[in-house]
């Protein structure tokens, strides 16, 4: 059967959409008996931050569907709330990364000359550093917060979209319609934003799922190292770190966030592959 990019993208996109959806609905999906909005009973009747020392490390069962962690907190409730951190950081990082990359790339492609060389130099400097080192160093320096992580991830990932947009912009700036726009008196700014960027953006947008996946992984990695989103936010990476002690006896504490991360990143990358026409068959 012939598969179009659209049909290949559909399942990945559907799975990927699940995460922001869960993140948005997290306060409704999981809250304690008192704390819910509108006094509704949540399908997951546990507060993600409320410890219950009598119910530590319970295996998955009827009460706690995915068990409890070392402080007796419901793993599923924390997973659902953790989706807010991961998708929030991921989406913000992807948006920042593409905005900065597209702007820098288009500017370089349109202006050429010294501007172009300057942007390319920056791109090479950033890409020559191991990104985790840069992000970890930054995370140790700036106040820990989800937004900090997003900015740091964006700061290391913008060169990819900058390169892609620059290549397109260099092609477009020679297009007859750009010459015609110039002959019509269009300013350099208008040419950049109205005539070049719209046409040069597509390849950068197609990388968004990759940036999203990488940002989610980086956030989890930093949280695992204790440099990520600070407690009490229920980050998946921190859950993994906390689960290390009890890995032999309480596998569910690690398995749940690991599976969530795996599915998130996998669906993001599948969508990226579908959008950029890779991974056929």
């Amino acid at each position, binding site marked *: 059967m012939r598969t179009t990019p659209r049909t290949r993208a559909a399942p990945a996109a559907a799975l990927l959409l699940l995460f922001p959806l869960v993140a948005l609905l997290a306060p409704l999906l999981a809250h304690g008996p008192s704390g819910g909005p509108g006094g509704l009973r949540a399908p997951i009747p546990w507060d993600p931050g409320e410890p219950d020392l009598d119910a530590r490390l319970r295996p998955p069962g009827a009460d706690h569907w995915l068990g409890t962690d070392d402080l007796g907190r419901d793993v599923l409730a924390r997973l659902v709330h953790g989706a807010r951190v991961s998708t929030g950081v991921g989406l913000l990082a992807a948006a920042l990364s593409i905005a900065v990359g597209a702007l820098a790339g288009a500017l370089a492609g349109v202006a*050429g000359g010294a501007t172009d060389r300057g942007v390319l130099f920056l791109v090479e400097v950033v890409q020559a550093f191991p990104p985790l080192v840069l992000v970890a160093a930054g995370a140790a320096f700036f106040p820990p917060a989800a937004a900090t992580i997003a900015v740091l991830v964006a700061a290391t990932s913008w060169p990819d979209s900058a390169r892609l947009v620059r290549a397109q912009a260099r092609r477009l700036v020679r*297009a*007859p*319609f*750009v*010459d*015609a*726009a*110039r*002959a*019509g*008196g*269009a*300013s350099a700014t*208008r040419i950049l934003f*109205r*005539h070049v960027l*719209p*046409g040069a953006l597509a390849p950068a947008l197609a990388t968004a799922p990759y940036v999203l996946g990488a940002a989610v992984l980086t956030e989890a990695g930093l949280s695992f190292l204790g440099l990520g989103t600070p407690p009490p936010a229920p980050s998946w990476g921190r859950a993994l770190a906390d689960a290390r002690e009890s890995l032999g006896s309480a596998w569910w504490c690690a398995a749940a966030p690991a599976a969530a991360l795996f599915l998130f990143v996998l669906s993001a990358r599948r969508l990226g592959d579908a959008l950029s026409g890779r991974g056929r068959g």
Partner: protein
Amino acid sequence: MGDADPPLLSVRGLSVAFPGPAGDVLAVEEVSFDVGRGEVVALVGESGSGKTLTGLALARLVPEPGRIAAGTVRFEGVDVGSLGERDLSRLRGGAIGYVFQEPSTALDPVRTIGSELVAVLRRHRGLGRREARAEALSWLRRVALPGAEERLRDLPHRMSGGMRQRAMLALALAGGPRLLVADEPTTALDVTIQAQVLGLLASLREELDLAVLLVTHDLGVVREVAGRALVMYAGHLVEEGPAEDVLAAPAHPYTRGLLASLPSGEDAAPGRRLPALEGSVPEPDARPPGCSFAPRCPDAFARCRTEAPGWYAVPGASGTRRAACFLREGDAP
């Protein structure tokens, strides 16, 4: 030049250079001409003659890495070379409008005709958004674009070639130009559409009292619309005069060659080959010494290969006629 009433456009000694492996190469060399108010002047030549670059140079639009190496362009008495970015973008699309050959590539594929027209009207005519939208519609009606109202919201790919060229004409005229530089405006169109667009151009020109510099290789088009003709070869102007005279009695062998390769009444018997100019325009970095046309010229003699000809006046019925050819040396004006 009379100080009291300078011509609309005055070009003197214009040279356009491109960097080459062995120094600068002149794609346009020492070109001088005037265009008066409301006058239609054809700039004629083959591909590679430098005619397009000459048109672009008028508003300093020579593409990188090319540059204007020498000469001055005066528009309405103002030296275009001295203008800053701001004045320059007011000139481009404002006082001087441009129409290009390929309406399919010269219109941005992702922008609607309406939004482009509105942008031009706001930029050059200082209109507000609402006025500009109304004016945009009236321009599409003036260029007789069918279904003008819907066309405002159309992207270029939804229109035919002729419609796109009409839209581009509207874009070029909406800024209120005094000079329209039309570079091969009908070359990409079917013959029937060509005639329509030329007719439209002629009627709008009269209505707006517009001067037109028509850049073309098509002598048929020149005959139809131009008042005066400038013939360009290998970066040089080689002949200038009233279009009628130049076409009826070409003074330069190059012009004669161009004319001979047009099918005319008697020659165009079926099965008979049309005469063609042998060879092609030399590249700017491979021009021969002396007259650039000498290698292809049927009348060339020894002097043509060593010495570049200057201008010689050509006797004619009306107006100034001149040609850059030694054969005209003997013709007393």
